[in-house]
């Protein structure tokens, strides 16, 4: 009787599996990132997570706060944001007007809430477009290599040589101020940056053996990129989205502040900060609350991105492998 080998005469990797499943259960963007069912987020693991990755939890909390503002805010605002209350103009925050009123008597709280709509949705759209295109170009070019890679990357380098705000301003001044154009401008600013990140991720993945196995099968480049590489790049993509979102908010509100972004009467936090400048001494709440909104949104997105990035690096240091 010959000695047939039994199943797996080797070490089971139990510890790694447990760590992996807990990590995924914790991230708010788990749906996009994880392929397998996450166990329910228990109380104990929440506090453990808070201790281990405070960035992630705080960032997620801030973002959630803003999402709540966007979704439920309109129901909480007692006054439409365009409504003037001239008799109550420049009133300090009170029970009636939670954030006070501006020079036209408009409720600042309502304006901040609707500004969230404006600023955040615009920033999210621009980020999604910019990073999306960056992913597509970066992965295609990184996989392809050769002269195409060099050509495209030199163009990207050219675009990267402009500081983001300056480039956005340039684009806005040629296109003209409008909401759509802000989205386009931010998208164009983001494309080279995201392309660069995703290209380097692709370079790290494309020589791995499972990719070679796909090539041996004769899979097309498109198949390899979308079915083999992309699922492994989701981690860095989520991080990229989160960090870029924070910059998008900053960019769009900066453009609004400078007056070349979204135009009134559309609400925009940057615009509100700009308008509130003249009342800094007399009615500081006009600047304070929109600025608070901007900073919490930016910090929230940034911390969240850092937190996820650290989480992914913590589990092995090489993307998701």
């Amino acid at each position, binding site marked *: *009787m010959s000695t*047939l080998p039994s199943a797996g005469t080797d070490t089971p990797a139990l510890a790694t599996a447990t760590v992996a499943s807990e990590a995924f259960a914790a991230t708010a963007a788990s749906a996009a990132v994880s392929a397998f069912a996450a166990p329910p987020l228990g109380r104990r693991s929440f506090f453990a997570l808070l201790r281990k990755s405070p960035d992630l939890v705080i960032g997620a909390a801030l973002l959630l706060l803003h999402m709540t503002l966007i979704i439920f805010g309109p129901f909480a605002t007692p006054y439409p944001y365009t409504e003037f209350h001239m008799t109550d103009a420049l009133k300090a925050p009170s029970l009636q007007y939670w954030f006070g009123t501006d020079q036209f008597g408009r409720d600042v709280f309502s304006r901040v809430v609707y500004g969230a709509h404006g600023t955040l949705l615009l920033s999210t759209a621009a980020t999604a477009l910019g990073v999306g295109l960056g992913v597509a170009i970066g992965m295609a070019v990184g996989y392809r290599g050769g002269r195409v890679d060099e050509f495209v990357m030199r163009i990207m380098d050219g675009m990267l040589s402009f500081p983001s705000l300056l480039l956005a301003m340039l684009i806005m001044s040629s296109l003209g101020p409008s909401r759509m154009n802000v989205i386009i401008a931010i998208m164009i600013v983001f494309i080279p940056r995201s392309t660069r990140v995703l290209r380097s991720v692709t370079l790290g993945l494309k020589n791995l053996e499972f990719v070679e196995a796909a090539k041996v099968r004769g899979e097309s480049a498109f198949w390899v990129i979308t079915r083999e590489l992309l699922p492994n790049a989701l981690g860095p993509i989520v991080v990229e989205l989160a960090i870029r979102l924070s910059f998008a908010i900053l960019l769009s509100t900066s453009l609004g502040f400078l007056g070349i972004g979204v135009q009134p009467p559309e609400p925009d936090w940057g615009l509100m900060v700009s308008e509130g400048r003249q009342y800094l001494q007399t009615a500081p709440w006009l600047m304070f609350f929109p600025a608070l909104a901007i900073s919490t949104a930016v910090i929230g997105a940034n911390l969240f991105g850092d937190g996820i990035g650290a989480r992914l690096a913590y589990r092995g240091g090489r993307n998701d492998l």
Partner: protein
Amino acid sequence: MSAVRQSNPSDSVLRVFDLSIEYRTRGGNVRAVRDVSFSIGRGETFGVVGESGSGKSTLAFAVMGYLSSNAQVSSGRIDYQGEDLLAMPRQRWDALRGARIAMVYQDPMSSLNPSIIVGEQVAEAITSHEPVSAKVARDRTLELFAAVNMPEPAAIFRRYPHQLSGGQQQRVLIAMALANNPDLLIMDEPTTGLDVTTEAQILDLIAELKRSFSSAILYISHNLGVIARISDRIGVMYAGQMVEQGPVREVFRRQLHPYTAGLLECLPSLDFGRKDRALKLIQGLIPDLARLPAACSFAPRCPHARDRCHNEAPELVEVVPRHWSRCMFWREQELERAQRAATTHGGQSVLAAHATSAAPLESGAATEARARSTTTTAPARPLLVVDNLSRDYIDSKKLLGIFGQERIVHALDGVSLELAADETLAVVGESGCGKTTLARLIVGLVEPTDGTIVFDGNALEGSAAERERDVRRRLQMVFQNPDSTLNPKRSIGQALARPLALFRGLSGAQALDEATKLLRAVRLDERYLDRLPNQLSGGEKQRIGIARAFATNPDLIVCDEPVSALDVSVQAAILNLLGDLQARAHTAYLFISHDMSVVRYLADRVAVVYLGKIAEIGTVERVFAPPWHPYTEALLSAIPVPDPDAAVTPIRLEGPVPSAANPPSGCVFHTRCPRKIGAICEQQIPPARSGPEGHTIVCHIPLDTLTTVQKPFTHRS
């Protein structure tokens, strides 16, 4: 504790008492080291053998004081000349480390600072412990370089690590470790990343240094051959415990623990192939170190286990003078093994067991070949014919197309070989010889610069994607690294489903069925279908890689070092599996490896490659016996044999490995050949001389001369 009572206790440099170390992880407390005791005397070499998960590296780190922050020493002491290392304050540690206790690591490239010249790094090791001038340190460094047989010490002094070869980097590390004449030297797998000829030189060096420096050495390795050569006493570790300990000759001659016996028995050697017998395996898995029962850790896998073994945790006892064992039935297991060996000669030949079994995995070409062989006697058309295949890589282009030299690396230079259906042809060579390039060319990952590949009569043009679908179906590959051979985001079922869908048009329930059959064929079961690669061990992942290759019913599978990254016991299981599957499916293998023993076991024919050219090719029996090409001779003599009494045949290759961008003229091996006959070797390309059964040696020395001067090695006695 008793294991520490040495013959000369006052002579001990290091004494470890009942050491237990745990790692705090989310999965629980992983007990990496449990109750380990041993001592090392002055000038003595203690070898620690174990596979992954045995705790040997944790042990080394503990002795050096490098345990990570989540490691906790739960009990025990480590005594260095009377001082307890575990209780030592930081300053004392800094004084000891590098001066009295030194360590040489596994990967020399990552142990050296890439931005400082190596001479300075060694000098720093000297000056940080002694207040000497830079000049004195430099002179000492040059002496050390000479002592470690470094060619041109002054030139090497000024080089950066990346400008040195692996062997040279390791010599630098050894020089650094010896700089202050330490009392204790810890070497953690120092030769694992090196080629076998380089490894042989480093082992020679260590043996020599043992005579001139009086350091005690703690040598850690998973390679029993290396341990046999280097150690005076050895300790075998399993699941964190020392299961056997004793003088090296004693332990190799007479194993008093079934794990040690199992390790030795599952090693392939140069004496037998799978047609002779299968490798004997150690069944089962390494236990979960976070959940250890109070019993013998090896019992679940032990063929000699009794009831008592599952209920009682055995102690390490000196059962025979100076020889300790942790097996309660050490006498019984010895007798049982002797009986088994006498009756069955190990395992039966794999082929005999499958001679009449049905073949669900049979490939098309093989069925044809068998049909043909029963009707005609004419030799069937070879499955794969490689003719004058070459591949060049451009290393650096000319500046602006005009200035400077263009460096071309000739990875493969005019290689020709043939492979028949249902045959295993091994391609053997050291790193940089071109064997991986050959594999990639055949499979279509790169395209040749010259030459042709003909697969079953069809010329293979272009990359894999450009070839016909049927050709791709019949030509598959198994990769080297089990950790990256599977997409970490796809389940096993998905990984297997793709080739099934692509090449056999299966989907849904049929695909599921077929995938299950494939899993069964590689000795796993359908529970694996939903798992992700990170839940599997290295051996399991490699099995899936093999299943994936067999999914398309291929005629030829190119195996690129499929067992190199695996533990010895896992390697044995995978080799048996590969042999088994070939017997059932009649698939041909092109087996790439650097390990001669593995090749001897699995292959029918073998080609030895050096610097992109074939040096020798023939059947395994003929290539492994004289006459040899001088390179083959050197390769074979360099292999560390797991037998402390084996004569070390000192055929060593001198000189640096030539670069493939600038290969030597004439015979490419002449710069290092110990049997070089004269100017002809430098000027003329050697002819291919043929012996019986198609055995070919490419050398200027005629075959009969080689036969007379080369003596076969005496390995296992």
